[in-house]
């Protein structure tokens, strides 16, 4: 991690926090601060990714602006966090995607949809693209052949997984724990990541736009992440049905893949729309407005993926199916490709930071009584 202005400011703030320690009950960041006297760039990268942005410390801080020290931990760490995404990105030339992330996400989405539409239209027989469909086995593959879906899907997703893994390795080398990783630490970190324990602000949740606490953001994030995982489970189940059981899509409304996908899609829509609505009314002080474009673009992409999936389900027996499917697959392709180059990477680095915290959980705070 480089010594940027954001890093220098984060170090200044963490040193003040370390002499205060009033916020240690809020989340994992502050107990982690008390374990050290000096903060290397790697330590600051770790703390930045450990911060879930609940904002509890901002409203509780006696040194928050307009105090001359101007302590604003959620914003300061968000600035560093954004820099770490670019710092650890693989391959490095693509780190530029984080500079104007909202634009990048939007353009990739548009191009993906156009690409899939072109493939679909090129493949289908002349005049057949808008024709009414029968819900017979293999109907989807008459629009886009299975092999094409598989090549594009596994290719883009596989590349992204590899890039995320490289990024995680870069993070761990720079900002990971020095001690060895134990099974117990992995279990603790996984639990903390899945439950969003640190979005709890000490039990009553986050600050949305004032000193008042609410669990809204945590619940919406659960809906979004849970919905995402259900959709993923739907795809996996479909894959098993097709490859191992020989059952070809489309499946009945009551079948497992469709049920999982439907519930997942609804949850994903509720979560993303809710989180987007919260961004409209949030207090601008403890957040970085500059990063809003990328955040919102990702929420919109997720919401659009879910909504187009549900729409496809609704129209799958009509002539609108091919175009609905092409658009839906376009969004999914964009999502796959953007995993390592958008807000989505926060899941990887946050989990890695939680792992370091779990590894260091028995270290004793420095100083004090």
């Amino acid at each position, binding site marked *: 991690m480089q010594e940027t202005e954001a890093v220098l400011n984060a170090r200044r703030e963490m040193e003040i926090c370390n002499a205060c320690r009033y916020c240690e009950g*809020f989340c994992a960041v502050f107990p982690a601060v008390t374990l050290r006297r000096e903060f290397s760039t790697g330590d600051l990268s770790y703390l930045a990714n450990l911060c879930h942005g609940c904002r509890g410390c901002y409203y509780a801080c006696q040194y928050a602006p307009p105090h001359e020290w101007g302590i604003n931990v959620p914003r300061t760490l968000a600035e560093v966090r954004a820099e770490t995404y670019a710092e650890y990105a693989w391959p490095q030339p693509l780190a530029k995607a984080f500079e104007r992330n909202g634009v990048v996400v939007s353009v990739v989405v548009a191009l993906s949809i156009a690409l899939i539409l072109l493939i679909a239209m090129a493949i289908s027989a002349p005049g057949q693209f808008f024709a009414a469909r029968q819900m017979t086995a293999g109907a989807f593959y008459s629009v886009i052949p299975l092999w094409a879906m598989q090549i594009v899907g596994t290719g883009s997703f596989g590349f992204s997984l590899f890039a995320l893994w490289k990024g995680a390795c870069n993070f761990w080398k720079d900002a990971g724990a020095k001690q060895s990783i134990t099974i117990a630490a992995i279990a603790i970190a996984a639990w903390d990541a899945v439950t969003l324990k640190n979005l709890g602000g000490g039990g009553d949740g986050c600050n949305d736009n004032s000193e008042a606490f609410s669990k809204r953001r945590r619940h919406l994030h659960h809906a979004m992440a849970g919905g995402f995982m259900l959709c993923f489970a739907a795809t996996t189940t479909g894959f098993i049905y097709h490859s191992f059981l020989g059952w070809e899509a489309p499946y009945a409304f009551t079948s497992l893949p469709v049920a999982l996908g439907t519930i997942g899609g609804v949850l994903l829509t509720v979560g993303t729309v809710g989180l987007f609505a919260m961004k409209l009314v949030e207090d601008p002080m403890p957040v970085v407005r500059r990063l809003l474009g990328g955040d919102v673009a990702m929420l919109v992409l997720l919401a659009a993926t879910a909504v187009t999936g549900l729409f496809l389900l609704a129209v799958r027996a009509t002539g609108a199916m091919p175009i609905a499917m092409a658009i839906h697959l376009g969004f999914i392709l964009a999502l796959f490709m953007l995993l390592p180059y958008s807000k989505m990477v926060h899941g990887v680095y946050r989990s890695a930071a939680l792992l370091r915290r779990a590894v260091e959980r028995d270290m004793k*705070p420095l100083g004090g*009584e």
Partner: protein
Amino acid sequence: MPDRKQTYDVLIAGGGNAALCAAITARQAGASVLLLESAPKAFRGGNSRHTRNLRAMHNAPNAVLTDAYKEDEYWDDLLRVTGGNTNEEMARMTIRASSGVFDWMKDCGVRFQPSLTGTLNLGRTNAFFLGGGKALLNAYYLTAEKLGIDILYDTEVISMNIDDGSVRSVDITYRGFPETLYARCVVASCGGFQANLEWMREFWGDAVDNFVIRGTPYNRGRVLKNLLDQGVAAIGDPTQCHAVALDARAPKFDGGITTRLDSVPYSVVVNKNGDRFYDEGEDVWPKRYAIWGRLIAQQPDQIAYSICDAKAFPLFMPSVYPAIKADSVGELALKMKLDPAKVIATVDAYNAAVVPGQSFDNLKLDGNKTQGLTPNKTNWARTVDKGPFYGYPLRPGITFTYLSVKVNDKAQVLMDNGQPAGNLFASGEIMSGNILGKGYLAGFGMTIGTVFGRIAGQEAARRARN
């Protein structure tokens, strides 16, 4: 927007813990309440903003406090720090009441946490607010708004006009413009005068220019002076204030908790002439930090320098300002603008006087001492010889003043003739001198504010609505 023309049942001057406790209690008792805070919203809450805990009596462990802390032990602690400068009846009433505030505080949204680090071992006696004093205030202000209490920020009380033992009107400035307000009862909860440097100068002379005021710059004692000028009885030594040792680089106001330094017991402390002047290891730091403010205030130019070596550096809380660091004592002295020859001589003399052989233990009085020095260091004395060397400049940091208005156990303000004022109550710092006339117990200011705030609110509401 509050209708400032109406006659409120209860008008509260102040916006800290005591004021909020009074306001919420009065409102819960059915009174209409107007609260006037002289600070802007961002700096609301007076010194409570910088607090962290409340000292509470308890006969058995509870959700936030370990073990037991019973009335007699609490009273003994208070008696010891005040040297008898207290009022036993009122103090014991406050102590007993402190055991019953938790449910009410929790209902107001206040949250507690188990004490963790950097807290001077207070887990048994003190309940810690999750997020500290500002988080507590946020909870109280949210509750106050929800209950329909009218709140004006940037509003300073200039005068509570007393006639025939009752406040008839209250002169204020609202965002800089003068107005007169009316209320059936008035509660003064607006702190001491430690941020009023001109007033402090009357007692301390130009030494105040070298004092650091730890808390809010808004506690200027305007209401305190106004009431005392109108025949309200005073209590507490007007010349005295609570002073601790702080990092000299702290801002003049509002540096809060972080500017404290815990290095003294593990250091050699010299004045600007390079001379030691007091036993750095007399007792554990929680029992000594408050006398060091006064000790430094008595040194030339009210400054001192704590010097330690690499052995001692990891033993105390990290400081908010980086230590001044050097490879030799002489270089360190130069960096702190002290006479290097003098400081080297002092440190050499100290090193030569250290009695070797004892095992070092920073967690208790370990008996490591010097012999033949004036003054000797009586605990944690180790040679200062392992580089790098670290130094901190120290100044007196003023927490609060003791001068108060006299009250009775119903929080009624007493006049010079001993009679209670008809409709004037007080709570918090402005009356703490009734109970805490000298010294300090960690978290006791918040206890007085909470207990008397609630009494004042209750009594004011009852009187206003009768």
